[in-house]
């Protein structure tokens, strides 16, 4: 497992996201209203919509292209649609640096 510094928490406004490419994969890091951060692959399982551009409601994001609703905690697409996006764990240190926990295994999830 690698711990990769990707951003500063202050760079991401609440209910919005920033994207970062790590090892060739585009990842969206969201800030929830609670201040908590979530990282998921920036690709909707439906037709590759950029989830980073979606509307965030609690820990869900709605894909901007066709409105699929995705749970950012487990990556699961909500009914009636089906699918899954890869999720990553993130950590923030006292200085506000945001780390992505990059694991080989997490990619096949």
């Amino acid at each position, binding site marked *: 497992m*690698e711990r*990769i*510094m*990707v*951003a500063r928490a202050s*760079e991401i*406004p*609440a*209910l*919005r996201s*920033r*994207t*970062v*490419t*790590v*090892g*060739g*994969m585009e990842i969206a*890091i969201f800030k929830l*209203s609670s201040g908590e951060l979530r990282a998921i692959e920036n690709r909707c399982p439906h*037709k*590759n*919509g*950029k989830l980073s*551009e*979606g*509307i*965030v*409601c*609690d820990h869900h994001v*709605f894909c*901007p*292209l066709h*409105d699929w*609703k995705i749970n950012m905690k487990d990556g699961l697409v909500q009914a009636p649609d089906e699918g899954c996006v890869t999720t990553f764990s993130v950590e923030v240190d006292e200085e506000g640096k945001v780390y*992505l926990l*990059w*694991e*080989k295994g997490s*990619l096949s999830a």
Partner: protein
Amino acid sequence: MKRKLVLVGNGMAGVWCVEHILKLAPQQFDITIFGAEPHPNYNRILLSSVLAGDSSMKDIVLNDWDWYRDNNIAFHAGQAVTKLDTANKQVVSDKGITVAYDELILATGSLPFMLPIPGADKEGVIAFRDIKDCETMMETAKQYKKAVVIGGGLLGLEAARGLLNLNMEVSVVHINNYLMERQLDETASRMLQVELERQGMKFLLEKQTEQIVGKKRVTGVKFKDGSLAEADLVVMAVGIRPNVALAKESGIELNRGIVVNDYLQTNVPNVYAVGECAEHRGVAYGLVAPLYEQGDVLAKKLCGLECEGYQGSVTSTKLKVSGVDVFSGGQYNDEPGTRAIKIQDEFEGIYKKVLVREGKVVGAVMFGDTSDSSRIFKLIRTGEDISGREKEIVLGEGFGGKSGSGGAGVESMSDDEIVCGCNGVTKGAIVKAIQEKGLTSVEEIKACTNASRSCGGCKPLVAGVLNCTLGEDAVTAAKEGVCGCTTLDRDEVVAAIRSMHLTTSKEVMHVLEWNNPEGCSKCRPALNYYLGMAWPVEHAEERESRFVNERNHANIQKDGTYSVIPRIYGGVTSPQELKKIAEVAEKYDVPMVKFTGGQRIDLLGVKKEDLPRMWEDLDMPSGYGYGKALRTVKTCVGSTFCRFGTQDSISMGIELEKRFERLNTPAKVKMAVSGCPRNCAEATIKDFGVVAIDGGWELYIGGNGGVRVRASDLMWKVKTEEEVFEYSAAFMQYYRESAKWNERTSEWVQRVGLDIIREALDTEEKRKALVARIDEALNLMKDPWKEIIETPELRSMFEALPEKEAAAAAE
């Protein structure tokens, strides 16, 4: 042992009956069908629309070859039964096949009546009954020009219309002095004639055909009065006769048709007749609705189910000619003892007459608007006593006016009201099917309930039922700005925002007890809009609640790139501006540069991170080609250059665009200004359209050229430019204040009603107040591109974070 069932006649009535038998008792019978035509079962009614070019032969097949195979039906297509031996219970075909039966259904339909006049056997003289006739007409139209249709009834007129569509010159010969006298009174008939003449049909009324002239092929038709009409094709549509040839020599009782009792039994045991060949209580019908009712009864009878027996039918007819709405049901001519309620509107070309005898509706004729027909027809069929309430019941809601879309009025229909007259499908049955089977399209409803499967005339009604059924559930919820997060509707939410002075979405969701604490992708943008509309100064724009396009101020494409449309006021640009746009397009490698439908230039395929830089280089305001806002004001050249122009439409368009650009509206708003009534800018399909006339301007509202095309309504005529600005601003503000989020003006005007809108703007005082409020909102608007370029926090959101390497690279 299965019983042997033989059907003679592979037409609409017989196969309908077999379909029902298969549903009721799929295992009881070994079924054999003989059909003289070499086709699988098709919808004869729609031959008219095949001829008119609206359907193809393939579209009208009701049960294809597979259906026979899948149901183990022995189908002898192209074989006529020529011998019926009731003593030995068997039939023999013209190809020599003999089949024994336990039960025999005769469904041989009818034969077109050919006038027994000299020359009727010449080449080019045909009837209009089957696929072959239809094909002959289509072939003939390729080589010949002149057609004469004999018979001004339903069938004749539909044939004539089809031939017109095939580019033939068509004259309709009719013996009576007005058309369709078997279905219409003279007033309706005359209106019909005028409309058909407008469509290019010619009429030869009160003409009796004496002879068809020509050598081998027809060249003309000669009349009793000595006159002659040239013709390369003659279509006889003078009537039909039940086809009883087969029954004739077999001891089956005949009158005009094959005589049957209430259970469709002939006088010979195990022999039944349905459809046009049958005569029940003295009537041989010539329409499908009765045949279906007969088929249902016979199917039950054969399967051994209890049923009431066939009681006869009240029929109604509609003419399937596009652009003409005609309905006739029951009795249509005034006579002693009947009183009529009549409405005749010569402006709209509408005529309606409902006949009442002893408190009961006995018949009706409608021309121009048949939207009430199913309601009135129900009164005819049920024979409900409406004494003393005649007017209120007959006139009902909106009986007088033209209700526009056929879908109107479905809400007020009761569940037992018939939607599909041909197949007797009620509104209730359709609603039930939609709900229980989760149907979402007219096609599915057709497959499931048979509604709209025959003449197709009820399709708009079926669509209406679908909309209003699904609308009550979740589907339109999104459109109404209310979603699963609350049970409140738009008006309740806006009222709460105003009365409790709520200024943020969070407050609204909290105070009104949303069941998702942060809402969803539907209510969040809606609330942001309502709040901004109600409290333009206090409400702080909530970017996180904006849909991506309105947040990034560009239109997202399916691959995640964006399109950029700079503002080009009134569609007027300059060489310098064009050069600049061209240079920017080159610099950023824009994959496609395209003119939009709204007279602007679209740069497509731009990467998100390039957007702010591009805007900077363009140095033009945002054209809002992505927003719920004023999009474009399309203009024609008007008096500046055009020889017809009466006013300067370009300046007017530019001024309107400058006044209203950036304004947030419930849904996108498009405008146009035309310099004269030729209307080159298509102002009458815009949300707000301005058309110059001599000495003034006409103002139109509620048009739409998109999914649901709607011509706009002329609302006001004004004299000065100042008035145009005042009315347009007052209109825009009234729309902003009363429409649902995501509701286009075309939907809004229909929901709210033109009168209400007119009233809201009918005094100068009201207009000034609206204008003051819109100005307040407009004053706060800034160009979003400029704002993003100049504000580092906003701008940084367009950049990705710096890329990272990872030891374990993604595959």
